[in-house]
């Protein structure tokens, strides 16, 4: 049985949803030189209501957004663009970096939205610089890992050290043993020649190998490589430039294997046909599962992979029993944090704690975007009844219907950059102020 959309203890989102949209509406109006009353009249609302919207004190529904966009002579999609939400996420990351690096002055967190709206160029430049710094940091970690774990590098360094050891001992023997027998002297001279040539060759190979690090465009963890590969549309692993490491290629092939297995159990044609036949009822994954006579967890994964009809903008998160992501495909506007991070309130984790129980929740991001989500976890017994049971959970998310005005569960991207001060699920302090 599906759960109620909001648990009693869950923090509720504030009414000042989508703060940036209000600010952008105000900016746009002032840019055009109109009074609030004019735009309000064109949009069919009162000037007082528009004033509340412009100060981010009222949410903007989809229909009203379209009318306001027409009144402001701008495309509605542009007015509500998710790009700003992504920009806000990047700016929060920049604030986090500033805090972590111990900047002298505190970042004005309560003015992030206004900063992004008033100075989009500066905001974009700061976000880009932060992303670049993050990228460089990841490169550094990747290089550090490589220096300590790369088998080729370890073997080559060992070879260098062995040659140096042999050269040092042998040269000392020749220098410190004047009465050395001619046979031994000749033998050691020959060894010196061999070892010095070996050292020369190995050193050259080592330099060439280290230089190749510079050409390495994908200094990411295997999980990050796989995520980049998913975002690129999952090209064949053998040709995918996103999959730089052997580990990532193995993970990608494993992923393709279970996708193929899922496809075998629920072919594309059957799923597309069921979605088409169900019409509006296809908004409910449980009804699709019932129509097809297939398990709900399978239907959730397949909807997230195939994305038929109304599911074209759906996102999918699949994780194992430890909560580690096996697959992440974001829905537009649902900001995914770095790999390894996540919000404990995401329904996928709730499902993990209650295997076989379908969970449907309306959730709302810190930026005010609302999403419908469906999650379910299943128990797997690859080692039989005697072995430990493994778990896998999946969550399908999609932008909520504008008409769905039920209270939503407020979730975040990850505690570190989540501005919900009273969240009971918080596991670490946020570096941001309240939303």
């Amino acid at each position, binding site marked *: 049985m599906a759960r109620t959309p909001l648990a009693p203890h869950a923090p509720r989102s504030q009414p000042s949803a989508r703060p940036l949209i209000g600010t952008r509406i105000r900016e746009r109006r002032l840019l055009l030189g109109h009074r609030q009353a004019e735009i309000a009249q064109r949009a069919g609302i009162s000037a007082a209501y528009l004033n509340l919207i412009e100060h981010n004190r009222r949410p903007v529904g989809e229909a009203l957004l379209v009318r306001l966009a027409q009144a402001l002579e701008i495309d509605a999609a542009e007015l509500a663009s998710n790009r700003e939400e992504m920009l806000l996420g990047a700016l929060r990351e920049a604030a986090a970096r500033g805090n972590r690096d111990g900047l002298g002055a505190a970042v004005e967190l309560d003015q992030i939205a206004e900063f992004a709206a008033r100075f989009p160029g500066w905001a974009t430049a700061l976000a880009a610089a932060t992303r670049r710094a993050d990228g460089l940091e990841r490169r550094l970690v990747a290089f550090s890992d490589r220096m300590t774990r790369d088998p080729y590098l370890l073997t080559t360094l060992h070879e260098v050290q062995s040659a140096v*050891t042999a050269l040092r*001992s042998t040269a000392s023997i020749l220098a410190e043993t004047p009465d050395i027998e001619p046979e031994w002297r000749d033998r050691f001279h020959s060894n010196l020649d061999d070892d010095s040539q070996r050292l020369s060759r190995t050193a050259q190979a080592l330099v060439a190998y280290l230089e190749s690090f510079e050409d390495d465009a994908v200094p990411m963890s295997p999980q990050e490589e796989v995520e980049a590969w998913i975002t690129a549309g999952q090209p064949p692993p053998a040709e995918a430039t996103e999959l730089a490491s052997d580990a990532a290629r193995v993970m990608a092939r494993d992923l393709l294997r279970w996708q193929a297995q899922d496809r075998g159990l629920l072919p594309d044609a059957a799923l597309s046909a069921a979605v088409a036949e169900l019409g509006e009822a296809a908004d409910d994954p449980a009804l699709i599962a019932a129509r097809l006579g297939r398990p709900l967890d399978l239907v959730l994964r397949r909807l997230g992979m195939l994305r038929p009809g109304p599911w074209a903008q759906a996102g999918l998160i699949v994780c194992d029993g430890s909560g580690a992501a096996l697959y992440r495909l974001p829905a537009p506007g649902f900001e995914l944090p770095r790999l390894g991070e996540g919000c404990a309130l995401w329904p996928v984790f709730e499902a993990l704690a209650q295997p076989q129980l379908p969970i449907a929740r309306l959730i709302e991001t810190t930026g005010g975007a609302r999403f419908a989500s469906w999650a379910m976890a299943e128990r797997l017994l690859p080692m039989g009844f005697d072995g430990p049971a493994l778990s896998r959970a999946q969550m399908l998310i999609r932008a909520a219907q504008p008409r769905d005005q039920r209270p939503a569960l407020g979730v975040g991207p990850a505690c570190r950059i989540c501005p919900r001060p009273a969240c009971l699920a918080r596991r670490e302090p946020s570096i941001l102020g309240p939303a």
Partner: protein
Amino acid sequence: MPAAVDVLLIEDEPSISEAVRFLLTRDGWQCESWPQGLGAIERIRLLAPRLVILDLMLPGRSGAELLADLRADPALSHQPVLLLSAQGTEYLPQGADRVLAKPFANADLRAVVRELLDAT
């Protein structure tokens, strides 16, 4: 019955092996060598050396694994071992009597060997 062996050097680098054997032999020690991890424990049992000089990175079976085998074997658990390591000391296995980092000075090697053999 093989002659009594003072030192068994387990080292896969021929040049290092030759240099060490030359040094120790000139110091008067009876020295034998073995070039790999595989068969090394059997060689120790056969020769019963007073001291084993063990390289850490060996083909077949690593010096760390051999050291663990020695310490787990009641008949060999007290075998004195000098470990030659090319790695940082933080990764060194437990159980060696002494450790010498590569590249080493010949004088250091000779001094440590004398110290360990005098103690047996």
